[in-house]
């Protein structure tokens, strides 16, 4: 399958389904059925078994024709995490049932992994799934769940055997979020709004046909999900001052009265680090393009989080008495994070999440130290003991 063939197939799709006159959802379904949704997926599942890089050929052709897309930012968890895991571990029936409406956005997905007692230590999850006839009854609490209030389905990690060590007693499920045993509550953040939710499950029903992978193999299945999450944090090219340095530098330029010698040196030092981080991202992409992905990527998110803390803190200080004000504490449930659409106080508070979400900076330092630098792990007291006997 080469670029020319894909271009030809895309033109056939457009000829049969004129974007100007075709319903958006009908077009997306037709695109999926033509194998042009994600060309690296297998035939019959929205793809053609082509190289992943060739997707760009299709996307460019469709964008040129004004075709609708599937609003990928709204369904990022489905596309980035659920889909690759279902593809890797799903039965044929599961793949047929779930992938098409996932890709078209008809069914939004969320991720039910973290719990109040299982954050960085994800393998400690305590949400129990108990056998009940030809399915499972699920009871427990999940937390930090983006999109739970819009999701139809969830990927979920639950404990099916408390009598074995914690990694061995987990299973991976696909949960229907409309089940009466599922309750979603917004979780308000330090910014005032609620990007994410708490999810309570009380005897929620999961048919065994919605189990992904073998019973007790949930940890391995979850690794596939998490690896894909880290792939997603790759980074696109950004222009100079494209990140959080942008609004801070703009404030400095617009307001001469905020300029002091001490702030000046801090600002230029942060400008230097911002530009170096941008260059490191560019270098990483050059390594990827040359077929030699470097381990530096693991350090990028760490540097990004630290930099955002420092930049947003400096910005508030520069604003002086205006820094004492806040734009709006109203509780809202935004679809996406919008750093630049809000004021400095919001940026300062929201940036605190950068060193927590998607793996805390402390866990990232462990990963770099152990997997990249090869330093030995801390001695573990929790890996050989039955989960039920662990202190909590």
């Amino acid at each position: 399958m080469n670029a020319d063939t894909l271009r030809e197939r895309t033109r056939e799709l457009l000829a049969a389904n004129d974007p100007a006159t075709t319903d958006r959802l009908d077009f997306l379904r037709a695109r999926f059925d033509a194998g042009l949704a994600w060309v690296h997926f297998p035939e019959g599942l929205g793809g053609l078994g082509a190289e992943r890089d060739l997707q760009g050929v299709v996307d460019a052709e469709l964008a040129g024709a004004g075709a609708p897309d599937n609003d990928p930012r709204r369904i990022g968890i489905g596309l980035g995490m659920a889909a690759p895991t279902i593809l890797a571990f799903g039965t044929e029936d599961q793949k047929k049932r779930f992938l098409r409406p996932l890709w078209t956005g008809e069914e939004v997905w969320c991720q039910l992994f973290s719990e109040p007692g299982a954050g960085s230590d994800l393998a400690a999850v305590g949400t129990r799934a108990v056998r009940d006839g030809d399915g499972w009854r699920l009871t427990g609490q999940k937390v930090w769940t983006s999109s739970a209030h819009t999701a139809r389905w969830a990927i979920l990690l639950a404990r099916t055997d408390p009598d074995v060590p914690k990694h061995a007693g987990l299973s991976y499920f696909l949960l229907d979020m409309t089940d009466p045993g599922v309750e979603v509550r917004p979780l308000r953040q330090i910014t005032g709004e609620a990007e994410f939710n708490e999810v309570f499950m009380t005897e929620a029903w999961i048919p065994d046909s919605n189990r992904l992978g073998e019973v007790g193999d949930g940890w391995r299945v979850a690794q596939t999900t998490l690896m894909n999450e880290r792939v997603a944090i790759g980074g696109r090219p950004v222009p100079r001052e494209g990140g959080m340095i942008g609004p801070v530098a703009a404030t400095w330029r617009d307001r001469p009265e905020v300029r002091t010698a001490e702030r000046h040196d801090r600002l230029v030092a942060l400008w230097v680090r911002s530009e170096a981080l941008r260059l490191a991202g560019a270098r990483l992409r050059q390594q990827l393009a040359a077929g030699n992905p470097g381990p530096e990527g693991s350090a990028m998110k760490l540097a990004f989080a630290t930099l955002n803390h420092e930049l947003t803190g400096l910005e508030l200080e520069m604003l002086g008495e205006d820094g004492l004000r806040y734009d709006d504490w109203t509780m809202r449930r935004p679809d996406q994070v919008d750093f630049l659409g809000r004021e400095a106080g919001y940026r300062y508070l929201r940036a605190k999440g950068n060193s927590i979400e998607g793996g805390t900076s402390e866990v990232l330092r462990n990963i770099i130290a152990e997997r990249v630098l090869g330093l030995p792990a801390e001695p573990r007291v929790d890996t050989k003991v039955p989960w039920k006997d662990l202190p909590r």
Partner: protein
Amino acid sequence: MNLLYTDVEEQLRASVRDLLGDRAQPSAVLARCETDTPHDLDLWRTLTADLGAGSLHVPEELGGQGASVREVAVVLEELGRHVAPVPFLGSAVLATSALLACEPTTEVRDLLAALGTGRSVGALVVSLATAPGAPPPPTVEVVDRQLRGAVRSVADAGPADVLLVPAGGTLYAVRTDQPAVAVTPVVSLDLTRPVADVRLDGATGTPLGPDAAVDSALWTATALLASEQIGVTQWCLTTTVAYLKDRHQFGRPVGSFQALKHRLADLFGDLALARAAARNAADTAAADPGGDEAKLSALLANSLCSDVAVHAAQECVQLHGGIGMTWEHPAHLYLKRAKADQIAFGTPGQLRQLLAPLVDLPGPR
């Protein structure tokens, strides 16, 4: 923009690393630094005459290798990794870059050939602490066509037989084998790149061209020193990681303690940023020497890599514990090099002040 290393650059790195692995082991470098020949001129002749590392960015028509400062940067990385005591910065970077900024007269060509092959060692007679872009007050005067004055803390002047001296708006070549020239080695913080004081009492020199060549050389050196600082950082990180895997206390390798391993993870992250900035500085200096983007990239890389290298060397000493404080362990050679490099061509704070107007971040009135 290519921020990676080309195959040719990797081959060059491998040759230099092989040579330094044979000839610049830490024990040998340490033993040499307290002798009266702190520079290893045998090693320097091998690097220049055999590997051609002394004339990499000299065009072929001027007798050089016809490569670019990208390759010079790779050599500096390896020299930094070994804190090799050779006059590369003084002769092959500063003096050679100053000569390349002059009209290629016969004198200039002869000097480039002598420096490039290692027959001569050159030094640019400015203090190593001189920042680019801000010409220092002239301390050497021309009186009756004779040069008089003194300059302190000149890099690699000790083994030099040709000094390039700015005086009265002109750059002069001054041979050191005349009685009116005194080059006095000083006890230096950096044991592997000792500085020397230069005194001229009526020396004669050959005019080479306008002294603007000095600033041009300082910009090139500022950009490239960042790569040496990468090499220093890389050695400190690698050596400390190896030690923390091996060293046991409290019944376990000390590298298993998060309080320690997190510090090395941070250093790894700093190195990733520093390497991107250093490669960018070398690439930009090669593509557009003297341009605003080259200046910006040089200031960005040097101000960042200076602090990263010092931090890495300090962590190396600290995380080695008591052994890191001994003369016997080579960590101090890297700390001394890193600290001297931080001061060289302006401290990070000075460089940030030079950078600010280039990126439209004006200071307070």
